């Protein structure tokens, strides 16, 4: 099962010391069930805040979020949300296997939410076979993040929220993880929302890319990605891919920032 994501006219204000900051201003986001969408934007544009509003970690100042008509809170209590953080956020006293099993410990081992894949299969899927009994501090950052992804998939989430999950990984691991994530996503049929800094990653992964601007956080353009699925690395050499990359780039920087050789730059950017 998967749910659509509807963000309607969300605004978010933070009251810190001094002037209140408008983190999000009248943001609209509509993602059909089962789609893979990405949010891209400069640092501090409120994209992580947006993700946390969908995850019911924060409450909006104005506007509403619904997941198939339910509030985020109802979806969360139904264990319908998977969240992968920027940092792995593993519990350091639990082994890899125990960390992956944490959601099962909370929901109950016999839950109907249980994914079709067992913890052992998920660990194998993310390439951590043989490290089941390692503690997080014994693993590299990339391996820890892969364990975190396995954990997010141990319950079949209707909505999978990914907050720059591969930001800390090197380019090679990152591409491999992206492909693995797409495969798992296709198998699970969940709706995925990915926050990222990387234009190429956003285009390669998504059906739809939302481009945001900062201060105040707004969605400036929505770009549909017509690349077929399943996605393959070779698609990154196609004109369609470059065209999409350029459109996202235009959304981020405006047309004046994209000179004639923008196609070449797109190649370099990757």
């Amino acid at each position, binding site marked *: 099962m998967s749910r659509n994501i509807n963000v309607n006219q969300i605004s978010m204000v933070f009251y810190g010391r001094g002037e209140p900051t408008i983190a999000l201003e009248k943001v609209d986001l509509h993602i059909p069930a089962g789609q893979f969408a990405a949010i891209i934007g400069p640092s501090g544009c409120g994209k992580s805040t947006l993700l946390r509003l969908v995850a019911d970690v924060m409450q909006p100042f104005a506007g509403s979020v619904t997941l198939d008509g339910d509030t985020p809170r109802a979806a969360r209590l139904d*264990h319908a949300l998977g969240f992968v953080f920027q940092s792995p956020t593993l519990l350091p006293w639990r082994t890899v296997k125990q960390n992956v099993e*944490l959601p099962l410990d909370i929901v109950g081992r016999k839950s109907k939410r249980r994914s079709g894949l067992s913890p052992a299969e998920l660990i194998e899927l993310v390439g951590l076979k043989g490290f089941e009994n390692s503690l997080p501090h014994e693993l590299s950052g990339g391996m820890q993040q892969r364990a975190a992804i396995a954990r997010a998939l141990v319950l079949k989430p209707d909505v999978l929220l990914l907050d720059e999950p591969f930001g800390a990984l090197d380019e090679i691991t990152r591409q491999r993880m992206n492909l693995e994530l797409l495969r798992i996503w296709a198998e699970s049929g969940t709706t995925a929302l990915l926050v990222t800094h990387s234009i190429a990653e956003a285009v390669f992964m998504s059906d739809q890319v939302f481009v945001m601007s900062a201060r105040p956080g707004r969605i400036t353009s929505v770009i549909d990605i017509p690349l077929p699925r399943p996605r393959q690395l070779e698609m990154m050499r196609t004109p369609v891919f470059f065209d999409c990359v350029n459109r996202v780039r235009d959304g981020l920087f405006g047309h004046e920032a994209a000179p004639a050789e923008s196609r070449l730059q797109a190649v370099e950017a990757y």
Partner: protein
Amino acid sequence: MRADAIIRRVPWGAILRPLVTAGVVLGAAEIAQRAGLLPVFVPSPSQVASEMIANPRLVFGNLGPTAWKAAIGYAIAAAIAVSAGAVAILIRNLYGAVYNFGLTLHSIPIIATAPLLALWLGTGPQVQIAIAGLASQFPMLVGTMQGLQAADARQRELMHVLSASRSQTMRYLLIPSALPYLFAGFKIAAPSAVLGAITAEWAGADRGVGAMMLYALFSYDTPKVWLSVLLTCVLAASGYGVWVLIERIVVYWDRDVQLAE
């Protein structure tokens, strides 16, 4: 494991270095005393040692009572401090009150209150137990209160998104992340319990390291005074050491994370 493998695994350097240091310091003290460089009220280490060998009953007859009284007072204080700390975290309105009460108790001068407590509670072991508890409660209270707040924001968000119940969050996240802080509190509090018990013994006790210390002081028996100081150190350090060993087993995951961040 074969015997030679075990021998190779023993951290000889870690054992030998403090032994050599102690040997050098004691040797220097011995030479200085014999050369007449130290005042008369500082005995040579060999005098203290022979005092101990000559009176084994003096040593064990006084070490035992102090040890068990300190241990009981410490255990009661630990139970109360950990429960009070947990309550203060669960009921936020009580946080300030619990903390300040613990701090106030910690600020009471034991040397003045011990005789008053003796008048109130009687001159049995209950006074030493009470004072040992009073002297050691605060680090354990602080350890509990800090520890239960030590989980970072991301980990809390994780439990929230998984919609873990309060007791699940406590069990899976808050208690394990409190353990390093709790052990820091237990370790710091152990010597305080010993010192508290000994100070309380000054206010009236027939047996105990504190009683022995007072008796030796009044009879100008400097080797016995120093022997009682040595016994105090041994007790305090073993209280600390026991927790270091338990911590190594229980907190197996962040061996190299320092508490001082």
